[in-house]
């Protein structure tokens, strides 16, 4: 009898282990960038393409950096949350438009010259924001996705919280739900802004 208890115990332990494992989100890969300075970039601003912006320009401010694209389906789900957030936020929300044209998958990029891609990217991004509302203080354009790689972007949308010293304090992969915003992001912003 004793022996069967032992086997049952081992089985229960295995079930518990699997239950915990199944509850985890395999998409949620911890970013090594948390606690490190936000990687530098210098990208054109959507509304004013002849001007550029980088993390240096945001020094001294706590800010949110949100990766989006018009082709990104989850971004659509997240968008109303961001629009709502921007209405009464005292924190700048900078958008990183990620591979607007080449990420879409509907264009033959080998036939598209770089300047045409750029033009189309700006046009599509503008149009999308006009249509769905613009929660961003401003958006910078990462047309070839190079800055995305520096930020370890692998699944749009992604959001970074960056502090006054330019250190990444949090990364959220996937759409921001009202819960994530209220329970994770807002408290962190409040703490950083103290």
């Amino acid at each position, binding site marked *: 009898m004793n022996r069967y208890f032992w086997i049952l115990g081992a089985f229960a332990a295995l079930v518990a282990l699997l239950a915990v494992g199944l509850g985890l989100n*395999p998409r949620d*890969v*911890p*970013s*090594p*960038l948390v606690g490190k300075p936000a990687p530098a970039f210098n990208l054109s601003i959507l509304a004013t393409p002849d001007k550029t912006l980088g993390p240096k320009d945001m020094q001294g401010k706590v800010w949110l950096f949100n990766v989006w694209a018009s082709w990104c389906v989850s971004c659509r789900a997240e968008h109303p949350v961001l629009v709502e957030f921007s209405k009464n936020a005292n924190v700048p929300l900078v958008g990183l438009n990620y*591979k607007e044209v*080449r*990420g879409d*998958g509907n264009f033959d*990029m*080998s036939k598209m010259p770089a300047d045409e891609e750029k033009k189309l990217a700006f046009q599509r991004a503008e149009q999308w924001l006009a249509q769905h509302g613009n929660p961003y203080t401003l958006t910078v354009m990462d047309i070839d*996705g190079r800055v*995305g*790689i*520096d*930020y*370890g972007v*692998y*699944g749009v949308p992604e959001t970074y919280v960056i502090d006054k010293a330019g250190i990444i304090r949090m990364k959220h992969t996937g759409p921001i739900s009202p819960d994530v915003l209220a329970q994770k992001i807002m408290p962190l912003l409040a703490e950083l802004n103290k």
Partner: protein
Amino acid sequence: MKRRILIALFIFGSFFGSTVAFADAATEAATAADPVAEKRLQKLSEELRCLVCQNQTIADSNAELAQDLRREVRTMIKDGKTDQEIVDFMVVRYGDFVLYRPPLKAITLLLWGGPVALMLLGLFILLRYLRRRATRVIAEDQPLSADETSRADALLKEIEPK
């Protein structure tokens, strides 16, 4: 016959498909011309995980990100970066998760040591079981007592043909 043709077509198709999918504009041609660089690219790509389709390397995967990362590796090879520098570049951005062979660290100890520990545990249980069984067999292997012998004799006599 028809089936064979279909299979041949399928094999040809998948081969052709994969080569086309791997084609990646101008830099590809540049590295492809250099077999050493191409080999390094292939080897490095097989060590790096695609973050989108997590059970594939960036060599296997045709996800956008895998293509971008291959392009990145290709550029770095062209710039004369060492393999270690290239791998470090990826780890800084995507973490250890990007490595198909996770490094031995405190946090990965269970991952590396787990199978060995399980095997040792199994061996221990097996040995204990075998030893116990052996003593039991020895214990049971005693010569019969006088009483048992006489009972056995009686039983044997019973079945003896008369």
